[in-house]
């Protein structure tokens, strides 16, 4: 039976539970009925219970049980129609039937199938009574298979009690952790042996208890066929829904947590995804759309997929909408890959439906779904192809309560990082600390050829600002590489301790709004430590922001791979509306200075930088102005010098590319640092103007290659000769 489809085991279990309840009620009712045979309500109740059991048997294809209960139903229907008087033999026969069904249910509970008996004798007897014939034949006692025992698997436990058990086990885990620490301090073999034993038993107990709260996701899916049908009907669409992996289990609390987001996504799929039958026919698809729900375990997480074969996501519409609501610029959007564009639908207030329907698209949309999924430590992403369909994929942790986590220290405090969001640990020592560079104000570290944005935990937590000295970090740099929704970034912490099983405790009302924390936990010494939330930290450090350096994202990897052999890391900057490329390996550092840091020595612009004076030159001053006729209105009114001066007044921060040559440094001021890319340079054009070596197309845009040597040499002269 169990192989018949999703959730059937659950259905059978429920049948046993409900059936047993119905039988208990029947026992009571039948006995009362014998005393009060004229009670119509009682007769109706008996009939209803028998009918319910029969219905379930029929539905579960328990044919022999169905035949048995059918006979009883026939008997009761005659009683109900007052065609048959209630006599002791009738009651007796019904009670025996109740016993037979109860025994059968016990068999079902253990084996999942109905017992092999055919109940012919009992059925014949009941049928005979139904015909109004007097009991003549001997009734065989229904055999009761004692060996089957009772249906112990179906003890119903109050959910609150289970939650309490989970909490208590959490306590136990903490005490266990404390004891292990204690045992490690004392060199006592007896103590350490006991603590080892306790360790094992606790782990097992924890695992079992957590299991008790696990529920198959099919429980949640049960409501979808109906929901899909109603929704599709209301929208004049034909939608089929399929399920795969309904027996995938996850913690009850998580089932609750994904209920609303999942419902929303399914509604979306039907409302926005699946097209009307006419549109589908036009697109060469079958009239009926399909929404497939799939769940499976993957690397300690549960993946839930909602896939539809509808119209897919219209990237152009997303781009338009993104510009409309001002979350991105047209320029920025051009640089985004298709996946990155799709991710925009998770922005608050994003909804591209042409008209608001009463089904979805009221502005509360995918951002709420995303927030809810992230609240339980999950991630969500969307992918799809226009015309083919959309897939929304949620990754949810199996359980919330107890998770493995890395303990790090910062400013004398401990913090826990859930193992699930940890990618790797990097330790930089001595000179390699210098390998931390800065791109557009964001410190970055080159990790295996990829730029890894860095955040300092102290800074994220508001414990120091970039202007302040971080104190002595000569001891090295500890970087925990974290994954925030596919985006990797490095978090610099003071120290790294051990991995521990921690019990996640929610934060109180006053702290719920802090996205930086996923909760708190109690450490072995009884102190509280905060659990860091990778996504929250990335968001507060603006790692995933539009500007700055975005790297190592799956989205970037999903883009067509460029030939590996000749790629070079390139820094893209913009100067006076044109894009310039600088070979990143000739760049020393990227810095940002406040205009107030700027000092003048004669006419030279300088800043104090690392204990020395750094001369700054605007790249525009190094380039031969290309045209006499400027292209844009604002450039029309301002030459390079005036623009540059205007920038100063605008109180902008100066973006500076620091270059060094033979021990001398120069800072090249650019308007904006756009991005860094790994690109094969295909120089399309020879030198177009002085100061550049050629032109190439990078990321679909014409980009000039800055002649670094010439720039360096020129920068030495600027301000000495070139009078202002």
């Amino acid at each position, binding site marked *: 039976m169990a192989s018949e489809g999703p959730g059937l085991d659950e259905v059978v279990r429920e049948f046993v539970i409900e059936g047993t309840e119905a039988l208990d009620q029947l026992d009571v009712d039948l006995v009362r009925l014998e005393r009060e045979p004229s009670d119509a309500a009682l007769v109706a109740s008996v009939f209803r219970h028998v009918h319910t059991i029969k219905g379930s048997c029929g539905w579960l294809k328990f044919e022999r049980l169905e035949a048995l209960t059918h006979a009883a139903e026939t008997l009761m229907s005659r009683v109900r129609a007052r065609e048959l008087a209630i006599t002791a033999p009738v009651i007796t026969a019904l009670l025996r039937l109740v016993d037979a069904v109860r025994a059968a249910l016990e068999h079902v509970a253990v084996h999942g199938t109905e017992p092999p008996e055919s109940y012919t004798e009992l059925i014949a007897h009941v049928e005979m009574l139904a015909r109004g014939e007097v009991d003549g034949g001997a009734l065989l006692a229904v055999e009761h298979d004692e060996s089957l025992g009772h249906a112990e698997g179906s003890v119903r436990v109050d959910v609150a009690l289970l939650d309490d058990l989970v909490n208590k086990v959490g306590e136990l885990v903490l005490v266990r952790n404390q004891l292990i620490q204690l045992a490690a301090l004392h060199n006592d073999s007896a103590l350490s042996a006991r603590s080892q034993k306790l360790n094992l038993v606790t782990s097992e107990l924890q695992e079992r208890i957590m299991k008790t709260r696990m529920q198959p996701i099919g429980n949640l899916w049960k409501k979808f066929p109906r929901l899909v049908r109603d929704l599709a009907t209301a929208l004049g669409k034909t939608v089929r829904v399929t399920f795969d992996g309904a027996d995938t289990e996850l913690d009850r609390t998580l089932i609750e947590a994904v209920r609303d987001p999942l419902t929303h996504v399914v509604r979306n799929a039907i409302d926005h995804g699946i097209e009307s039958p006419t549109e589908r026919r036009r697109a060469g698809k079958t009239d009926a759309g399909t929404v497939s729900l799939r769940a499976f375990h993957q690397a300690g997480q549960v993946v839930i997929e909602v896939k539809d074969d509808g119209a897919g996501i219209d990237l152009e519409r997303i781009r338009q909408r993104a510009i409309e609501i001002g979350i991105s610029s047209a320029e920025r959007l051009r640089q985004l890959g298709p996946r990155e564009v799709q991710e925009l639908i998770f922005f608050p207030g994003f909804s591209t439906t042409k008209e608001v329907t009463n089904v979805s698209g009221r502005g509360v949309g995918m951002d709420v779904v995303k927030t809810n999924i992230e609240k339980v430590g999950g991630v969500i992403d969307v992918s799809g192809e226009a015309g083919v369909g959309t897939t929304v994929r949620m990754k949810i942790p199996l359980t919330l309560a107890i998770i493995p986590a890395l303990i790090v220290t910062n400013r004398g405090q401990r913090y826990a990082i859930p193992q699930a969001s940890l990618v790797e640990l990097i330790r930089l020592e001595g000179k390699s600390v210098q390998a931390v560079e800065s791109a557009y104000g964001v410190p970055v570290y080159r990790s295996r050829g990829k730029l890894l944005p860095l955040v300092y935990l102290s800074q994220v937590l508001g414990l120091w600002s970039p202007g302040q000295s971080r104190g002595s970090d000569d001891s090295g740099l500890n970087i925990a590489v974290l994954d925030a929704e596919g985006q990797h970034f490095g978090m610099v912490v003071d120290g790294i301790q051990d991995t521990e099983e921690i019990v996640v405790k929610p*934060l109180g*009302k006053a702290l719920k709004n*802090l996205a930086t924390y996923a909760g708190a936990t109690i450490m072995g010494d009884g102190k509280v430590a905060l659990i860091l939330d990778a996504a*929250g930290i990335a968001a507060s450090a603006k790692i995933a922001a539009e500007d700055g350096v975005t790297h190592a994202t799956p989205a970037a990897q999903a883009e067509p791979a460029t030939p590996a052999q000749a790629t070079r890391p390139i820094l893209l900057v913009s100067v006076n509306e044109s894009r310039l490329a600088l070979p990143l390996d000739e760049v020393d550092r990227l810095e940002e200075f406040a205009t107030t840091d700027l000092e003048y020595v004669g006419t030279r612009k300088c800043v104090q930088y690392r204990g020395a004076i750094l001369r700054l030159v605007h790249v525009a001053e190094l380039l031969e102005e290309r045209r006499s006729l400027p292209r844009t209105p604002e450039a029309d009114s301002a030459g390079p010098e005036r623009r540059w001066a205007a920038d100063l007044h605008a109180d902008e921060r100066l973006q500076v590319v620091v270059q060094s040559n033979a021990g001398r440094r120069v800072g090249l001021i650019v308007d904006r640092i756009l991005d860094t890319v790994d690109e094969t340079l295909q120089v399309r054009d020879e030198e177009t103007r002085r100061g550049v070596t050629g032109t190439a197309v990078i990321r679909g845009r014409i980009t000039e290659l800055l002649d670094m040597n010439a720039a360096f040499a020129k920068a030495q002269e600027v301000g000495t000769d070139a009078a202002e």
Partner: protein
Amino acid sequence: MTESIQLCTFFVGDLHCGLAVQHVQEILRHQELTPVPLAPRGVTGLLNLRGEVVTGIDLRYVLDFDQRRENDEPSNVIIRTSEGVVSLLVDTIGDVLDVPASTFEPPPRTLSARARSQVRGVFKLPLGLLLELDIDRITEIGSAQEARPN
């Protein structure tokens, strides 16, 4: 016989404050709290109360007194709210008092606006005034503050 109310009392600054005993779970001496960077003002940290993580709220902040001195050792009044257990940091613990309901009055205007909004009313006792705090208001820290912009 006049109705009376039982209040668990404590001192914050120069105020004698109280909360109805049914709200108060227990009193703890000074505890070391785990600080929470970025927490709203008034939240002093987290406390392990037999395995439960409890937020500490400093009543000096709530009642508009100047900041607690560094080596102060405030006591904890652990209260139960509809949204979990909270620890209130107070200067010193007072007695549990039976006060006649008839002596209750709305909060005096002399209190600062912020403090007044946190007080349900005042009991006029022979020895002075006893402020009954509004348990919902004093634990409201942070929820009024919107989520930090990401």
